[in-house]
């Protein structure tokens, strides 16, 4: 996989950091790549906002921080306002569509929204919003494959939550696949 800079951001309690960890594990333990995750600490991280940065590469990662984000997973309006301006002009924006109201599309940015919180509640636990978003990343971008992601989830959450998190991942994945397929049908993007 080529060098990809990813920002995951939302508010505390949405499982932002865990999303980063599962993504990093998927790439660096259950796939053949390298992944470095960093997160914001300090007073700003104690309050509402929470951000994880994941750098992915097929070679060793030297510079550990995100420079120009290629992909953003945004789960709050505040995170959107803060990070969207830095998104690469041909990047990809994935957002929780009931929590984030994005501005008009700019440049060649591909934007995909998902009602992840509602889906999570339908699955019986709003906590799994983050794995829905991760599945959504997989379904829309193809950056991670479902099987290694499922393995990474199993290695990261308590035993009795694995199944629920797998369901959540699948939900996001299918929804993402569906959106992309719809676009392809509509001729907006090619293969």
């Amino acid at each position: 996989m080529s060098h990809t800079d990813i920002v995951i951001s939302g508010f505390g309690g949405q499982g932002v950091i865990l999303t980063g960890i599962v993504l990093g594990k998927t790439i660096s333990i259950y796939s053949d790549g390298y992944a470095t995750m960093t997160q914001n600490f300090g007073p700003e991280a104690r309050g509402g906002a929470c951000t994880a940065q994941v750098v992915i590469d097929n070679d060793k990662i030297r510079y550990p921080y995100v420079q120009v984000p290629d992909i953003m997973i945004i789960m709050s309006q505040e995170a959107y306002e803060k990070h969207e301006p830095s998104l690469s002009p041909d990047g990809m924006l994935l957002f929780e569509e009931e929590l984030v109201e994005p501005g008009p599309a700019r440049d060649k940015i591909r934007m995909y929204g998902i009602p992840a919180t509602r889906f999570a509640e339908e699955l019986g636990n709003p906590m799994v919003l983050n794995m829905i978003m991760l599945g959504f990343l997989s379904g829309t971008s193809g950056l991670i494959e479902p099987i290694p992601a499922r393995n990474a989830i199993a290695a990261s959450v308590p035993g009795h939550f694995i199944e629920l998190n797998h369901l959540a991942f699948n939900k996001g994945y299918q929804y993402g696949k569906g959106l992309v397929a719809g676009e392809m049908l509509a001729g907006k993007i090619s293969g």
Partner: protein
Amino acid sequence: MVQADPVGVLTGTHYLDGDHAAAEGACSAGCRFFAGYPITPSTEVAERVALRFPLIGGTFIQMEDELASIAAVLGGSWGGLKSMTVTSGPGFSLMMENIGLGVMMEVPCVVINVQRGGPSTGLPTLPAQADMMQARWGSHGDYELIALSPNSPQECFDLTIESFNLSEQWRVPVLVMMDECIGHMTERVVIPEAGEIELVERRYTNLNPDDYLPYKPCEDLVPEMAPIGYGYRFHTTGLTHDERGYPSMNAETQQRCVGRLLDKINLNRDEIIHVDKHYLDDADIVVVSYGISSRVAIPAVEKARREGIKVGELRLVTVWPFPEKLIRELAGNVKAFIMPEINHGQVVLELERCAGGRAETRLVKHAGGWVHDPETIYEAIREAAK
């Protein structure tokens, strides 16, 4: 060398940050006594040790401050267990006096410093490499110790084990000079089987108590230890002392006592120092770096190489003692040294001293709070190549 006790070794492939990896390094190295005081950005090391130690037969204690933490670590090591503490800038300042006691009494122990921006409270949550000279000179008096600088979570694991080995071999406090970026960065960390981890055990004397002198050095200038409670009834002190360990405060004993403490490290530098070299054979310019800076320097070196600039990289895994001999050799063959540091120029002073004016020395400084952009280092290489 002995193999690690499997009880403490969490064999497998993990996704850990540097702080957690360092804690696992300690567990694998057989560290079974930890005394510490929480301080950002090193706290996660203490937290993981607190979680792990009751499961592997270790004793963790949160002390009342850093003064107490390092003192307890020295006591714990004399008690016969591999001992460690962890801190960051302000706490490191508080530990200085007893790091000196550790040097003077020759106590094997490990101190991890996850560096943050300073001076004073500075930047608690952001990286710096600003305690490098404090590591070398922060305690009073003349002394030598060993300081390593990891540049990934994997190395936080590996070099913590290495630090315990070095501390036992040379009877000296060993500092693991991490930084916030490495400490809080999460990556793949492979923890091998216990059988693949080699450990240096403490050298206890085989002499009987009547023949034993606690500070009589062996051939490598390191004296053997005696275990407490076995009839040796030895005395040890932070005062200048003779081979009996008794205070002897005069110029002759001072020369002998301090002289040996310095020689013990200096004369064994070749055995202690570990560096990584890349493209040095034909290099006109050498980027000398350590810790996170050594990592972000690589893209800069590679970019310059692609453009035909003959630049090499010398990465200091061991920062103290400084690889003086190697720098002196290189200085005769290269045009310039470039050193990126997240400070306003610390280790570069030593580099400049050893270059002795025979090669230009350039500092790429950074006040702290972030790491160097590789472009900045690349620009410095280009500038030096002109």
